[in-house]
C-alpha cells in the first residue's frame, strides 16, 4: 500500500505539493488528474525517489521510498519526458534493465516487442515520439514491477495502441495484483481504466474517490411537478445541486439510484427522468458543493 502523508515539495519557495495525503491500495489503478502545475508529476517523482520531499513522507508498506533500492526495484516509472541510454536500441535497454530488475521478464519483452511491432535493433533515437513512448512502456511492463507509474503516458499514442496499453496494464493489475498510478490531463482518458481518481490542484488534493462511487453515487434528475414547490420539497434527499426552471427541477443528488427514485416518485411528479452524467460533471458538481469553482479547470481537463 502506498501512503502519502502531508507530502510537501517546494521549488524555489513554490509549493508543487502542499501537504498532500492519500492512500493507494495494492491492486488498484489510480488515476491522477489535474491541470499543468497541479503536482501530478512531482508526486510521482517524489514517490520514485527522484525528488526528496521537503515535508511529510511517502511510504510503501510503511517503508519510505527515498533512497530505498529495495522498493525502487519494485517500481517502474515511465515519465512524460523519456530518456534512453545514448545510442541504445531496445535490446541494449533490455540488458540495462535486466541488470537492475531481477523480475525482468525477457520472454515478455520479446512478446511485447512483437505486439508493439517495434524494431528491436534500431536505435531508439530514430523512433518517432509515439514509438519511443511504446518502447518505454514495453520496457516497464517487461520488468514486471509491483508498482507501475505512468506520467502522461497515453499522450502521443494512437487509439489502438492506447487500448493495447490499457489492457496490458489492467492485466498486470488483475493477474499480479500490481498497482498502477496514471497521471493525465484528461479525465476521459482515465475514467474507463482507473479504479480510483484523485484531482490535484495547485499541489493540493481536492478530491479523491472510487470511480464507481463517483459514477453511481451521484445522479442527475430532471423532474416536473404540477404544484408549486421549493427546494424544501427535496429535504429528504442528499442534494448536491438544485435549480428550477418553471415547473421543472434539475437536481444533482447523492445516494442509491433506487432509493432516490422511490423518494421522488412519492412526490407525484408529472415527469421524472434520470439523466446520464459524465465524470467531468460529477467532478464539477462535487467541487462546487465543496466550495471550489473548478468549472474552468474541469472544462480544460475534459477538452484535453
Amino acid at each position, binding site marked *: 500500500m502506498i501512503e502519502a502523508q502531508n507530502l510537501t515539495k517546494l*521549488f524555489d519557495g513554490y509549493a508543487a505539493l502542499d501537504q498532500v495525503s492519500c492512500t493507494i491500495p495494492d491492486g488498484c489503478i489510480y488515476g491522477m488528474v489535474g491541470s499543468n502545475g497541479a503536482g501530478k508529476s512531482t508526486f510521482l*517523482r517524489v514517490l*520514485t*525517489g*527522484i*525528488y*526528496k520531499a521537503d515535508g511529510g513522507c511517502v511510504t510503501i508498506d510503511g517503508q519510505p521510498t527515498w*533512497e530505498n*533500492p*529495495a522498493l*525502487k*526495484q519494485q*517500481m517502474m*516509472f515511465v*515519465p512524460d*519526458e*523519456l*530518456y534512453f*541510454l*545514448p545510442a541504445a536500441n531496445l535490446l541494449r535497454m533490455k540488458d*540495462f534493465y535486466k*541488470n*537492475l*530488475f531481477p523480475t525482468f521478464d525477457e520472454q515478455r519483452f520479446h512478446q511485447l516487442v512483437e505486439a508493439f511491432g517495434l524494431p528491436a535493433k534500431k536505435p531508439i533515437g530514430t523512433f518517432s515520439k509515439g514509438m519511443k513512448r511504446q518502447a518505454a512502456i514495453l520496457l516497464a511492463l517487461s520488468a514486471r514491477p509491483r508498482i507501475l507509474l505512468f506520467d502522461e503516458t497515453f499522450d502521443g499514442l494512437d487509439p489502438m495502441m492506447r487500448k493495447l496499453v490499457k489492457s496490458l496494464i489492467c492485466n498486470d493489475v488483475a493477474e499480479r495484483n500490481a498497482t498502477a498510478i496514471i497521471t493525465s490531463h484528461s479525465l476521459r482518458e482515465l475514467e474507463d481504466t482507473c479504479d480510483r481518481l484523485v484531482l490535484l490542484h495547485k499541489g493540493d488534493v481536492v478530491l479523491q474517490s472510487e470511480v464507481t462511487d463517483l459514477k453511481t453515487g451521484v445522479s442527475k434528475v430532471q423532474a416536473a411537478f404540477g404544484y408549486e414547490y421549493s427546494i424544501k420539497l427535496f429535504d429528504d434527499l442528499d442534494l448536491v445541486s438544485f435549480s428550477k426552471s418553471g415547473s421543472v427541477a434539475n437536481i444533482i443528488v447523492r445516494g442509491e439510484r433506487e432509493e432516490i427514485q422511490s423518494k421522488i416518485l412519492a412526490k407525484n411528479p408529472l415527469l421524472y427522468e434520470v439523466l446520464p452524467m459524465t465524470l467531468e460533471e460529477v467532478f464539477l458538481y462535487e467541487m462546487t458543493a465543496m466550495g471550489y469553482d473548478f468549472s474552468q479547470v474541469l472544462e480544460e481537463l475534459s477538452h484535453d
Partner: protein
Amino acid sequence: MTNRFFSFRLFKEGLRQSRLVGLIGLITVVAFTLLIAVGIIADDATYVHYQTYSFYTVSLVLIAQYCVFSPIMVLYLFRYLNRRDSSDFYHTIPHKREALHLSYFAAVEFWNVVTTLAVAVTVIGVYNLTPYATLQYTTMLPFLFNMLVAQFAVAASVLLAMSITGTGFSNLLVALMIIFIPRIITTSMASMIQNVCVVADIFEQVPLLDPALNIAAGLPITCVIAVFNGFGDPVRCLTDPICGLYTLGLGMITFAAAIFLLHRRKSETATKSSPARWLQAIYRIAFGAVLGLPAVAVLFNAIISDDIGDIGYWIGIFALLFGAILFYFLFELIATRKPKNLLTAIPGMFIFLAIDAVLLMTCFGLGHSILNFTPDADDLDYITISVEDENYFVANASKIHIEDSEAKAIAAECLQDTVYKVKQKVIGRHRYYGISYNYYLDGQGYTALRIGYNTAMGTQYRYVMLDSEQRQALTAAVETDQNYKDCFYDFPSEDAVVFASFAFGGDELSHDEAKTLYRSYVAEAKTLPFDSWYGTALSCHTDYGYSFTTRSDLGCVVLKPTRDGKEYNMTLNIFPELFPKTSRVLTDMVNRDCERQMADMKALLTSLQGKTLNNDDYSKEGEYLNMAIEPIVPNEYYLRGVDANDIHFVLTLLAQSEPFTWQEDHVAVGIAANYYNTAESKSERNYHVLVGIPYDVLEPYLVPTE
C-alpha cells in the same frame, strides 16, 4: 556484488558507456609513448655510447591521461546530471546514489589504471628489447603513482564541479576553477611574498604555497611560470612522492565532497548553472578575484620597486582592473544568460576587489614578517649550514647542529647584513633575482649559504651573503667541529662513478678513465686546506671562479652516490688552481686525439674558405658552419664570438696552436667547429679540440670577464 557503495553491474555499465573515450585515451597515450620511445632509441642507435633515460622522460605522454582523458571521461559519463530527463532516469534506478556515482567513478579509474599500466608495460618492453638505450627505473614507481593520483584528483575535481552545477559550460568552468583557482592564488601570493623576503625560501616558510605540491594544478602552473622565471619545479610534480601524497589527500577530500554533494544534489539542478544564487555568487566572486590578480601583482611590484608614482604603472593597473571587471560581468552573463543578473552581480564586484586588496596586504605582511627575522647570536641555540642545491656532502653536514658561539655570531651578523642590504635594495629583486647563488657585488665576491637559525621558536632557514672575510671566519669556526668537518671527507666509493662526458674531442671517457680521474681528485682533495676543499664541496667557492669542468661544456664527471636510500647527483668541480694534478690527468685524456682532430679541422676550414656559408640557421639549404672559441684556463677572459666569416682567424689561431700541455704563458683554448651540408645529408662533421696558444698571440683578442 551490490551494496550501499558499489554495484558491479553499474560499474560494468559505466565501463560500457565510457569505453569510447577510454579506448581513445588508451590508444592515443600508448601510441605516442611508443613513438617517442622508438624515436629516442632510433636516434640513440647512431651514437657510440648509449644513453640512459629516466622512466618519466619517455612516459611523459601519460600526462595527457590526467589533463585530457580522465576529465573528459567524467564529463561524458556523468553528463546525465545535466539533463532533467536523464537525471530523473538515473535517480529512479534501484541503487543508492552513492553506489551509482562510486561505481561510475570506478569505471573512470579503471580506464586510468589500465592506460597507466599499458604505458609502463610499453616503455619497459621497448627498452628491454633494445640494446641501444637503457632505462633508469628509480623514478618509475613515483611517476606512475603521481600520474594515477593526478588522474584521480582531476577526475574528482570535475565530479565535484558536476555535483554543484547543471550545465556543460558551468561544469567545465567550475571544474577549472576548483582545480586552478586555489593554486593560482597561492602561487601568486608566494611569488609576491618571495619578492619581499628574498632571504628566505617562501616554500620552506609556507610549504603549502608551493605549486608543485598539487600535481593536478601544479604541473601546468609550474610549466607556465618556469618559462618566465623558473619559479616552481615541474619535474618535482612528476616524481616527488610528497607531491603525490599531497595530491592524493586533496583528491580524496575533493572526492568525498563530490560524493556527499551528489548525494544531496537535487535532480532538478539539471540545466541550472548553479543550484542556488549564493553558490553562483561564490563562483563569480572567486573568478573575479583571480581576474584581479594581475592588477594586484603590478601594484605590488610598483610598491616594492618604489615606482608607485609612475603614471604608467597606474594606467596598467586600472586597465587590468577594468578588464577583470569586464570579464567578471561577462562570466555572469554567459553562466546565467540573464542580463538582469548583471545588476545583482554588482555587490560581488566590490567583494572580489576587497579580497584582492586583502591578498595584497597579506603578502606584504607575511613577506616583511619573514624578512624581519634577524635573531641575535644569544638567541640562537645552534645553526646549520647548507647550500641551495643539496649535494652528497651537504646532505649530512646540514644535519650537524653547530653550537660554536663564534659561528653563531658570524651567522647572526651575516643575516643582519644581508637583510639590511635587501631593505636598502642593494641586493634582492632589484639587482639580482635571488640571493641563493654566489655573485660579485661592487667588486666583492660573495658566497651564498643557506643557514638554519634555531631559536626557541624553531628553525628558520635563510639565504645569507658572506663576503670573503666572513666566509673565512665562518669556515675557521666550523672547522673546530670535528663531526661537521668529517662530513666533507666521507667520499663516495669509485663504484658511484656512473657517467663521464667530454664535449671536446667528441668523445667520452671510458668508465675506467673516469675512475682514474676520480681517484686523483679524491687524493688531491684530501691534501687541500679545509677552507679550499670546504668551498669546493659546497660548490660555493667564489675565489676560483668557474670550475675547469663546468666551463664551456668541456665535459663533466658525474657520480651518483647513494646514502640512506637517497641518490645524489654529484659533479666534480676540478678547479685547476686547486686540483693541478687532476687537471693534467683530465687534459691528457681529453687531448688523446687532439692532433688528428686539429688536422681534420684545419683541412675542413681550409676547404671552406671563400665559400658562402651560413651559421645562423641549421635548416637553411646549403652549407652550414658553426664555430666557437673559448679560453678555459686561465678563466678570467672571454674571446669575441666567431662565425662563418672568421675561418681565416680560426685557421690563424690553429696554426699557432698545439695540444694543451699546461705550458707556462699558454692559454688553454677550446675550439669547436660543426659543419653540415644539406645536399649531402650524411656529411655532418664535428671537431672539438683543447689547444694551447701562447698568451701573447691571443692577448689582442682577449676580453676580461669582470
